[in-house]
């Protein structure tokens, strides 16, 4: 397994000018970058980050769109994978942080936590490239090649859970803007808003 912070740090070295939807890696990503092209949305409704990233990638084909999704989101909206594969945006890089649990609700295991092959599901759904990683060294070594080749690509990474047990209302808020403010900022930066 990997630490999400290490994985995010490895990606940061290769980010370039990509739009980054930080998703479940948000509180680590904000330590590296906090511009209008960094899109911390929180959790508007679980399972939807991949759809948002798909829409953004289709709308901005000239920019790489990178998403840090989770296995819980994938399980909740697995039907999005064929839609992504069918649309096949070459600029979409779909990373999944698989910690095997619902970390924000106390760490209960997700169904099939030890048996689901997420890359296999993505491949069977039509992603032309899909792979699983279990160790940071292998991930770090493969990352430049992953980002240099066209998408859509699905990269599932086993990470240690970072379980939160504090009641939601008492948690420290790391996001500085609301989700709607983030979208407005992105549209401004892209010159479409």
């Amino acid at each position, binding site marked *: 397994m990997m630490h999400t912070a290490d994985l995010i740090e490895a990606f940061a070295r290769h980010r370039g000018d990509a739009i980054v939807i930080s998703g479940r890696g948000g509180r680590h990503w904000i330590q590296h970058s906090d511009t209008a092209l960094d899109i911390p949305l929180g959790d508007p409704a679980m399972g*939807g980050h991949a759809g948002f990233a*798909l829409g953004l990638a*289709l709308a901005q084909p000239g920019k790489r769109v990178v998403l840090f999704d989770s296995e819980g989101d994938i399980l909740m909206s697995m039907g999005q994978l064929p*839609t992504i594969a069918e649309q096949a945006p070459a600029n979409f890089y779909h990373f999944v942080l698989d910690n095997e649990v619902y970390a924000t609700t106390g760490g209960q295991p997700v169904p099939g936590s030890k048996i689901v092959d997420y890359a296999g599901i993505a491949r069977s759904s039509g992603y032309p490239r899909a792979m699983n990683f279990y160790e940071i060294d292998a991930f770090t070594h493969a990352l430049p090649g992953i980002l240099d080749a066209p998408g859509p690509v699905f990269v599932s990474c086993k990470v240690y859970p970072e379980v939160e047990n504090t009641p939601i209302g008492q948690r420290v808020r790391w996001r500085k803007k609301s989700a709607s403010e983030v979208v407005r900022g992105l549209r401004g930066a892209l010159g479409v808003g």
Partner: protein
Amino acid sequence: MAEANSLSPETMIAQMKANGVTDIVWLPDSETNFLYLLMSSDPDLRLIGVTREGHACSIAAGLYAGGRKPMILIQNTGMLESGDSIRGWLMGLDVPVVMLVGYRGYTRHGVITDTVAHYTERFLMAFDIPFYLVENDSDADRISTAFALAEKTKKPVVVLIGDEFHGFNR
């Protein structure tokens, strides 16, 4: 030919064009097949098929964030299923999108036997989502009204297609 007093697919396409729609995020139902044929033959419209109606909300939000003008086309059954996605991805992100919703079970005479029709308008009122009813071609300008309201409020607006004459299936 479409029956008198029905809503024609050509009218729907004209409304999409007039309002600058670039992408249709949709899940088909039994009454939209002829509309699908027209949409899919139009090179200026991109169709994005989803497998669950709630997915349409986050995809539309991403398209809007990137500068496109999406429209959502689903049935009322799927709208009920999509409640949290509508709340989180469309209302929460201030996405000005028109949702064209097939009003399954709607009847003009008001006797409803399909429970989804019973709950459709109640759902919209509970979510505080403005909506317009379109039954035939003469109502079509309400679709443009819906687009204008969505743009003004930066929120989703629903157009209910109460086409009890099945104009799409001609």
